[in-house]
């Protein structure tokens, strides 16, 4: 027993160290929690932190590796306990709770003019909640069609460009032409059907969430909201140009079928190109096409990655200065290339590295000006509406279990009951 206790004491002594925290009277220490996870992206973030530390001896930045998995719970607990990182990396669709909960600093008045004017107002809109700005949107990715070039050429279909994209109807016809026995024109990975549908529906004029006369948000399923869901539904259930089996899959799950020629096109986030470059078999030819356009053109919704400052951070000015450094045009390009995404900054978007045709960079960059805030991300009650009403409703509609009228009824009737609880 005595030996056991000795071992335990040694272990606990070895284990028990306390966090460095902020040093008083000396240089300021900021903790920057980054969610970068791909090798190049982690390297870019770490390099930038090192560069900052080398040139700013009075403000030291400590790099903390976070994870997209469970980031919301982890941040919420840290905020509640007053132990949150000073600079927080997240995505705009995750910020609403934190912004309304008073956990994040309102950055108006802190942001330098350069940064404010460099990022377009449509991007700032993704991090604006109420009247405050609670994050700096810096990386974004449109949904694009990753296509098997050989199949497109063999079917002799018109290749769409950002200047002359396919309409949703044309896309449906092309998918039919690319289909055959055991082969599908398109595979829709719809593990998250709500965000995919809502973001793409902006192109057809669908907004779903509207403000009524007394300022309350209500769900109204208009003709514009029906275009994308109907196209997807009909591709699966009527044309059989899309398999039902991928509807519950994540994007990466469709890649083996894409490489094997089973699917000619896969709608994916722009950053999936990195995986395709790594995994595509030799001799496999692929290209990036813009998503189809509707009555509103090529626009689509996005939830950019953001950098925010914790409300409890005692050195907000220094934290914003660090964000400004990270998001200088050249640095923003480094971060974008590391994550295979697009920067939000207009100057960064002009960088030649983002205009090469290699790996479809030019196509994605051409779409940047058409990206808008994802619908509803700032609507209170949206997460509950999404989980309890919209996700099952869209899943059942796409699988053919319910029709469009029932989908509309559920999104509007059940959905407005949920939203009403948050707007009393």
């Amino acid at each position, binding site marked *: 027993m005595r030996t056991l206790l000795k071992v335990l004491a040694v272990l606990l002594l070895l284990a028990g160290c306390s966090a460095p925290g902020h040093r008083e009277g000396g240089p300021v220490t900021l903790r920057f929690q980054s969610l970068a996870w791909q090798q190049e992206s982690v390297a870019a973030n770490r390099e930038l932190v090192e560069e900052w530390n080398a040139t700013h001896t009075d403000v030291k930045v400590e790099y903390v590796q976070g994870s997209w998995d469970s980031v919301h719970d982890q941040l919420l*607990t840290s905020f509640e306990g007053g132990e949150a990182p000073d600079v927080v990396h997240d995505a705009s669709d995750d910020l609403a709770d934190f912004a309304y909960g008073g956990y994040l600093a309102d950055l108006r008045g802190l942001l330098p003019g350069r940064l404010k004017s460099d990022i377009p107002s449509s991007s700032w809109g993704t991090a604006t909640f109420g009247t405050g700005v609670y994050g700096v949107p810096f990386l974004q990715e449109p949904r694009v069609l990753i296509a098997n070039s050989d199949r497109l050429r063999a079917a002799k279909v018109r290749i769409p460009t950002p200047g002359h994209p396919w309409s949703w109807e044309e896309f449906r016809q092309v998918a039919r032409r690319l289909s055959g026995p055991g082969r599908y024109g398109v595979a829709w990975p719809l593990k998250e059907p709500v965000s995919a549908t809502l973001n793409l529906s902006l192109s057809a004029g669908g907004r779903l969430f509207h403000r009524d006369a007394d300022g309350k948000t209500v769900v109204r399923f208009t003709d514009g909201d029906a275009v994308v869901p109907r196209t997807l539904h009909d591709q699966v259930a009527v044309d059989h140009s899309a398999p039902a089996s991928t509807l519950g899959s994540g994007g990466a799950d469709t890649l083996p079928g894409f*490489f094997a020629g089973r699917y000619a096109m896969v709608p994916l986030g722009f950053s999936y190109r990195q*995986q395709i470059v790594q995994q595509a078999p030799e001799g496999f030819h692929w290209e990036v096409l813009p998503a189809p356009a509707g009555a509103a053109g090529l626009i689509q919704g996005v939830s950019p990655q953001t950098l925010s400052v914790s409300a409890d951070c005692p050195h907000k000015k220094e934290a914003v200065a660090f964000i400004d450094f990270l998001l200088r045009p050249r640095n923003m390009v480094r971060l974008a290339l590391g994550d295979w995404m697009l920067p939000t900054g207009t100057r960064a978007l002009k960088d030649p590295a983002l205009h090469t045709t290699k790996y479809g960079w030019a196509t994605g960059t051409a779409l940047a000006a058409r990206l808008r805030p994802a619908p509803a991300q700032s609507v209170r009650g949206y997460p509950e509406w999404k989980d309890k009403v919209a996700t099952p409703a869209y899943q059942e509609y796409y699988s053919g279990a319910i029709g469009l009228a029932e989908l509309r009824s559920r999104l509007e009737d059940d959905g407005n009951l949920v939203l009403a609880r948050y707007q009393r």
Partner: protein
Amino acid sequence: MRPRRAARAGQYAALLAYLVFLAFPLLWLLSTALKSPRELGSLHPAWIPRHPTLANVRQAFDEQPLAHAALNSLLVAVATAVVAVVIATPTAYVMARQRTRLARAATGWVVVSQAFPFVLVIIPLFLVLKGLRLIDSLTGLVLVYVVWALPFALWMLTGHVRAVPAELEEAAAVDGAGRVRTLVSVTAPLLAPGIAATALFAFVTAWNEFFFALVLLKSPGKQTLPVVLTHFIGAEGVADLGPLAAAAFLATLPSVAVFALLQRRITGGLLAGAVKS
């Protein structure tokens, strides 16, 4: 004779099938860890990698501080197992042997405490640990794990204590052994398998635990293995599959080793005295 042989063959076949069922995830993890990105993107995955590579292992160690995280996990898991056993053994003995209201209340607490999910306790727990200055400290994490493992450890050990006949202790007392002597020479050896099983349970619980470690540890140098493994997972669940599989496979090995080490003790103890020699 033939039916017996057939029955034996059937038993072995069933055992083999069960082993394959149990080993499948581990073998698949190993197979994935040894495949190149191209092979991972194949529509028809093969069990045996066509071009086995250790690139994923190298990448996993290059990208993340796996060895340091494993050391943190080991410290936390061993400390948890030791503290849990030290607290649970005497407590379980009292709960099993004393039929008092307090013992019954303690048993009730054990059952009730199993009903609380992580998310319900994490924020109050965080605030308590913050008050004790134990946030971002492996000591704090050990404390949490011990508290978390104790109810089940107590429940397990109470059962083991009850299985030791009280008559044996009475016989020792009749032979002149004192209380301490009886506990050390008679009860403790019979409880050894139970203590080993409890230690194993506490070790594996602490080794695998993710959520508390994610929330309570801030400094990169203190993160445990399950937290570091999530760094291979990106937004929308996209994963760097090869390095993740390599790191996850290596992360399972200590658990397997500890189990192999203690397994003989558990079964040996259970069978001790079953037959006359």
